């Protein structure tokens, strides 16, 4: 365990260092523009897995949390000219609070009813933002980037590194949960909520915790988006595509291990970027659907399920 932690911490630092280093070595801005999107999907997919995978509560509201992150940043930038780090931190707090509220209202529902409720939340928040003139309403809003900070030579490259750090935070959180008793409690309540409760697992508390953490990370993933696009519009910020992608990437990668959503997001994210450039942006939605069907049929436990040794093969 200890050795693993050290290796993980080393790997995480190496990842961020490599991300930062490439921004100095590679001049072309496009790889970072595309890479940012992939990193953003890793954060979303990992965050989705904490509630949807570990706890088994399928959340279709990733776009609600993402959009809340986007508009928290827009508001802070417009109202206070707040710097990026403040935008991300406050977005995470707002996302966590939203997760708590949504959890309180909906976690007593199970299965498909919970999932439908999360879609409803997306629509409600979307409608609210559409009608909020201060942050641009339905027409959207231009966002002006602050000057690029040293040592970065472009703002997009800096955002790429920031998103890489968010990936590390998301993955470290998911990994911690998975290896702690919280993870075992979530897994227990996913398998059988009543039995978990009667075994001493504080099921409602753990589900709320998963909602808060998952919501905070999703909103944080969305927070740098206005600066990245220099624009925010509800149609894009609350795009159902984020919900579907987060879910698909997690399921394709496998939800039993933190590495699953990372693999799923990299695989799908890279392919989608490639398709967007070489064929069309509509093709990547098709790919998502096809991949999801293929994996549900051929590898229901995702990519990670193909590698993790099957416990089920040992019979008593």
């Amino acid at each position, binding site marked *: 365990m200890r050795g693993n932690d050290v290796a993980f911490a080393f790997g995480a630092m190496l990842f961020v260092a490599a991300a930062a280093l490439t921004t100095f070595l590679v001049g072309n801005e496009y790889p970072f523009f595309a890479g940012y999107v992939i990193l953003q999907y890793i954060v979303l997919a990992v965050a989705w897995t904490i509630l949807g995978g570990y706890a088994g509560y399928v959340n279709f509201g990733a776009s609600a949390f993402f959009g809340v992150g986007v508009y928290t940043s827009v508001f802070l930038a417009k109202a206070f000219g707040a710097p990026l780090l403040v935008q991300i931190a406050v977005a995470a707090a707002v996302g966590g609070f939203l997760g708590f509220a949504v959890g309180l209202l909906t976690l007593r529902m199970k299965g498909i009813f919970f999932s439908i409720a999360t879609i409803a939340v997306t629509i409600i928040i979307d409608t609210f933002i559409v009608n909020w003139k201060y942050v641009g309403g339905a027409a959207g809003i231009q966002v002006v980037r602050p000057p690029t900070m040293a040592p970065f030579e472009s703002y997009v490259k800096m955002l790429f590194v920031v998103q890489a750090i968010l990936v590390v935070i998301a993955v470290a959180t998911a990994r911690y949960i998975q290896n702690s008793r919280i993870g075992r409690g979530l897994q227990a309540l996913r*398998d059988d909520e*009543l039995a978990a409760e009667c075994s001493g697992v504080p099921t409602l508390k753990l589900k709320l915790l998963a909602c808060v953490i998952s919501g905070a990370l999703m909103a944080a993933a969305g927070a740098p988006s206005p600066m990245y696009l220099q624009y925010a519009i509800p149609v894009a910020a609350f795009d159902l595509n984020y919900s579907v992608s987060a879910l698909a990437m997690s399921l394709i990668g496998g939800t039993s291990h933190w590495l699953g959503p990372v693999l799923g997001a990299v695989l799908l994210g890279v392919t989608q970027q490639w398709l967007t450039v070489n064929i069309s942006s509509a093709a990547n939605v098709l790919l998502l659907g096809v991949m999801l069907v293929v994996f549900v049929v051929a590898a229901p436990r995702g990519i990670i399920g193909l590698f993790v040794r099957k416990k089920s093969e040992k019979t*008593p």
Partner: protein
Amino acid sequence: MTGEVGNNSFLRVEGITKRFGGFTALDKVSVDVVKGERFGLIGPNGSGKTTLINIISGVFRPEAGAIRFRGEDITHIAAHQRNRRGIARSFQIPRPFRSMTVLENLMVGQDFAAGDASLHSRDRAHAILQRMGLGAAANALAGRLSQVELRKMELARAMAAQPQLLVSDEAMAGLSSSEVDEVLDLLLGLSADGITIIMIEHIMHAVMRFSQRVMCLETGKIIALGEPKDVMANPRVQEAYLGA
């Protein structure tokens, strides 16, 4: 351990009434279970046995009445908190955590139990499994166990939290007679360790052999309570079971 509040109020069920819509599942049921007792709970199907267990373990809230455990009113606290206070149960239809191994199933109970963390080790879980005759199945997936193994795992998982009161809900249903004896011996062993046990059972010879006292419910009311022989001889009990 030996009750600060007196042995007589270990578990006290006070005037419990539970309704489901217009149906009264339990009607002012009151009973005391003494510390260390082996208490049998019988009654025809639908008489309210499992409902009573669900109220004791915190799955349901009663419409009226109170549950006191070691002097404390626990009527309105959540099931997981009752588990930490020392009430554990098994389920009539086994409810394993299917994606986990048998050992991990036990560790869930240990992880969230109250008390000394050093007691909540993998070794202790192994020891419980050995004792329950599940040592060899420790690393098997719970979803793949046989019926008798599932029953034993239900009891083992309940034991992982080191309960003072164990409620066994038909742990022997559907087992062969040799398996019934096996589970019965396990329960008697736990009782010998000082754990108070409430056993719901339809298998009469098991109830007779196990219980120091037996309570018979019929349509939500207590119709007999006392020594097993007397309860069995009670004409109302015979009527309830055999029909008038």
